[in-house]
């Protein structure tokens, strides 16, 4: 339970993708998303689907785990598909049932939209959430955004906040459970009564929880000061991220994929799609 939250959806592993520099992974997933939106032809989509399958295989994460990530989005996927199916008009009318008209273009569009969403999910989960811990992502973001510090964007403060939040989530979950137990032992009832009664029943949990969170924040601030923390200025990091040749090769392959998509759109579309 606790580890679920700290590590998000991270699946432990030692694959090539796991070992990539998280900064490169962030850039690569942005590029990949751009490439997905560049695809305008059946051949390009085919290539992207193949590449996605390839990347999934490369992570050595069981594909069913990645399918599970799609479950919460199932409703949105279906909804967009249905909208496209029924409301897209075109030249080739296939079925007409009263006011419902289904065109061939509608079916194609629905399929492609679904495919596009699936590709987006795979891209973000394979490159980021499944193979990179939130901690590594935070560090990578801090370093990627470091140039913004010159524009007085509080990059370090943001990343320190994230670090501390990630660190304290399990502690506070534990604490919440303890307080719930304690109040339950005193006969508190959180499950019956009207909405207002239930809301009121939360007071004995929320007040101790807030007080404890403030106490912890106060003690942590003192501890950080005693450890000579004075903000981002003059700070070094033990784990500086290093990009190796394999990271650049990986990034190039995404760029090449983009180039291939553009070329396929242009010269071998098989079927051009208006999305």
């Amino acid at each position, binding site marked *: 339970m606790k580890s679920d939250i700290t590590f998000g959806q991270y699946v432990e592993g030692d694959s090539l993708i796991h070992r990539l520099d998280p900064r490169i992974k962030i850039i690569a997933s942005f590029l990949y998303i751009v490439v997905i939106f560049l695809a305008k032809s059946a051949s390009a989509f085919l290539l992207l689907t193949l590449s996605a399958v390839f990347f999934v295989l490369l992570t050595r994460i069981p594909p069913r785990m990645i399918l599970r990530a799609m479950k919460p989005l199932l409703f949105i996927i279906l909804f967009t598909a249905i909208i496209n199916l029924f409301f897209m008009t075109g030249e080739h009318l296939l079925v007409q049932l009263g006011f419902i008209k289904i065109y061939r273009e509608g079916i194609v569009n629905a399929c492609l939209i679904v495919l596009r969403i699936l590709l987006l999910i795979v891209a973000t989960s394979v490159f980021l959430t499944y193979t990179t811990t939130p901690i590594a992502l935070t560090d990578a973001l801090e370093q990627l955004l470091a140039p913004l510090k010159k524009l007085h964007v509080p990059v370090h403060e943001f990343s320190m906040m994230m670090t501390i939040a990630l660190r304290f989530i399990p*502690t506070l979950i534990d604490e919440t459970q303890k307080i719930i137990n304690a109040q339950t032992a005193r006969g508190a009832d959180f499950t019956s009564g009207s909405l207002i009664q239930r809301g009121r029943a939360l007071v004995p949990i929320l007040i101790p929880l807030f007080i404890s969170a403030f106490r912890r924040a106060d003690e942590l601030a003192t*501890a950080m000061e005693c450890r000579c923390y004075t903000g981002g200025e003059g700070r*070094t990091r*033990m784990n500086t991220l290093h990009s190796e040749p394999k990271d650049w090769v990986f990034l190039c392959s995404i760029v090449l994929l983009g180039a291939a998509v553009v070329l396929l759109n242009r010269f071998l579309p098989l079927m051009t799609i208006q999305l």
Partner: protein
Amino acid sequence: MDIIKAEHLSFTYPGDEDTKPVQALKDVSFSIPEGSFTAVLGHNGSGKSTLAKLLCMIALPDSGRLWIAGREMTADDTTEEDILAARREVGMVFQNPDNQIVATIVEEDVAFGCENLGIPPKEIRRRVDEALAAVGMSEYARHPSYNLSGGQKQRVAIAGVIAMRRRCIIFDESTAMLDPMGRREVMDIIERLNREEGITVLIITHHMNEAARADRILVMNGGRIFADGTPAEVFGNPLRMWEAGLDVPQTTELCWKLRADGLDVPLDVFDADECARILAEKIGGRR
């Protein structure tokens, strides 16, 4: 040289509409020589946690003077830089292990202080590895801290201080929330840091058996220093300790009560085997 020196420190918590002002420290003077192992012993409300607050400079005394690592903290011209410089020399380990660990992963937390000091990454790596080895936590370097026991968390916190190469470490009730096993682990490390590494140690505690391991005990009571001496001297007067709301080790209590029977037994033996050996000698064991 004294790494900490306090002269006539006083501190009062201001009251508000519901509460009266409380004078927590009254004219407290003492000094801690470099390399020593001192325990500050006192019941809750005796002023010992207020003293800790002053020593880590999250509060300033109302009056009196305080020097840390040769710098005066209470002068009119004391700057942030002076305080920071003092913090580089004197580290703190607090009571609640959960509220002093900053990063999720053990080694990243140990590195935190060194990172603040701006030490080059390679040097931090070396120090972190050494510090984790010194507290016996090397195998947990890449673990998240929340799965660790209380004693292990405190060892991580200690490693964070060691990695900063401080000359003095103040332990503010660092064992109070631990189980007996964790308490022993942490006390063993504290003792080793002092004896082997020569780090000046100041422990603030209400456990007399922990204080018995120090070279010197300062007893706080009612905001004042109530007794100051070696464990033998301080525990040698059990009535006075009881008066301060504290206990003495059971061996001392036993010997003290047996003295009433005319037995000449020492009050400064805190080890069960040693105590039994001396008692058997005096009483004459039947074999």
